[in-house]
């Protein structure tokens, strides 16, 4: 896979696709048949979107031509299908700003410092970008960004603190191991004495617990105490149901990922309850040159099926080609019979 985006680089392309889920991937195919080059951006570190992140092993039964295929299997097939068009993948980064250049092209930036210049933007962002989930603890919002963090941006921010890490997955275990040397104290709190993390990390964590360097507590956070945005105590309900106050000044809860529309909401596109209204001829948004396909869009009769997103990608491509190549006369062709399409696919 081509993933050529060093930090701070500028990528010039025809179409910038936001979201590398099944619909974003298939858009590469439909656009590719029309000689349009694509760059894909996704917050996940792998292509496939929900199929890859939420249900790689779940069977899907409504992909035409596949009586049964797993999420992961579908992504593999799509990657194989779009290979001839050699799209560039820019993974593990979230889109931030979108603006217009004087020449009419779009300038899109990401939080990793990548800049894209393209004539068309296709939003295929599904349910939105995957972001850390806020745990269901009453009043936690008041401490976010000060005492409560959902990711470690700077390890130094945790130096000398009584750190409480909540969770039992890889993130919780990895940060337990990484922050232990610089924290004043480190407690790993989990609901049960079983961890869904790499066995090696679990073994290392248990060694640190043995050595008295990490405290392992079993229970759930039921509330937080503190003032002026600074936590002083976490209220922890133990497995016996009794509540104890645990002293802490930095909390890292790892409660999995959820999907949020994110910065796309600030791009000046008309929205309808976090979905993007489009027409059903071109799947164009309220902003010329910006299209929306797949689960992120809405129109009368919309259903959120992968196969509907594929259809939307095909129609979007027929409209986008007139923006990318305004002078070109486009003749619709079939892959079964067109030798020019077959050449592009590398099959003849």
């Amino acid at each position: 896979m081509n993933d050529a985006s060093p930090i701070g680089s500028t990528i010039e392309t025809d179409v910038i696709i936001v979201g590398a889920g099944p619909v974003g991937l298939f858009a590469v195919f439909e656009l590719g048949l029309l000689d349009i080059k694509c760059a894909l951006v996704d917050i996940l570190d792998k292509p496939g979107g929900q199929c890859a992140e939420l249900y790689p092993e779940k069977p899907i039964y409504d992909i035409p031509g596949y009586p049964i295929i797993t999420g992961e299997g579908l992504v593999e097939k799509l990657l194989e299908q779009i290979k001839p068009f050699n799209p560039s993948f820019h993974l593990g980064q979230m889109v931030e700003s979108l603006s217009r250049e004087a020449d009419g092209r779009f300038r899109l930036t990401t939080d990793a410092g990548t800049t894209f210049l393209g004539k068309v933007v296709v939003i295929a962002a599904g349910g939105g970008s995957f972001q850390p989930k806020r745990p269901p603890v009453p009043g936690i919002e008041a401490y976010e960004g000060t005492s409560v963090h959902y990711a470690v941006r700077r390890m130094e921010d945790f130096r000398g603190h009584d750190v409480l890490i909540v969770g039992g997955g890889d993130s919780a275990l990895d940060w337990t191991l990484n922050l232990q040397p610089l924290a004043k104290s480190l407690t790993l709190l989990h609901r049960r004495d079983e961890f869904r993390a790499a066995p090696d990390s679990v073994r290392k964590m248990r060694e640190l617990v043995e050595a008295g360097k990490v405290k392992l507590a079993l229970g759930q956070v039921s509330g937080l105490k503190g003032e002026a945005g600074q936590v002083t105590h976490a209220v922890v309900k133990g497995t016996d149901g009794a509540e104890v106050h645990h002293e802490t000044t930095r909390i890292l809860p790892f409660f999995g990922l959820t999907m949020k529309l994110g910065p796309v909401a600030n791009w000046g596109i008309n929205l309808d309850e976090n979905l993007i209204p489009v027409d059903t001829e071109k799947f164009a948004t309220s902003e010329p040159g910006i299209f929306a396909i797949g689960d992120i869009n809405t129109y009368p009769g919309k259903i959120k099926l992968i196969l509907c997103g594929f259809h939307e990608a095909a129609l979007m491509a027929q409209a986008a080609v007139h923006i990318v190549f305004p002078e070109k006369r486009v003749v619709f062709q079939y892959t079964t019979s067109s030798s020019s399409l077959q050449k592009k696919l590398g099959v003849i």
Partner: protein
Amino acid sequence: MAKITYIDTTGTRHEVEAENGSTVMENAIRNGVPGIEAECGGACACATCHVYVDEAFKDIVGSPEPMEEDMLDFAFDVRPTSRLSCQIRVRDELDGLVVTVPERQG
């Protein structure tokens, strides 16, 4: 068929006739039981259809598979009777099942 009763956070009881093979989550969504969100649509990929199974049915319903247990880590106030309702399939033996919706979903 089985009659399932959902008790929401206000204490209101919602009685539903559920077909065998459907899930306790699906029946809640179809009948608009408040407090069951089922964000992921039943893929066992979130923890927003969390319920407490009535003690009397705990053994009949059974305990969660490892994957569900992992997801329960993301739920609020997990108890020994906690289950994700998308993972409970309705069958005749569940007739009369009572589940309570937790104060908040994950």
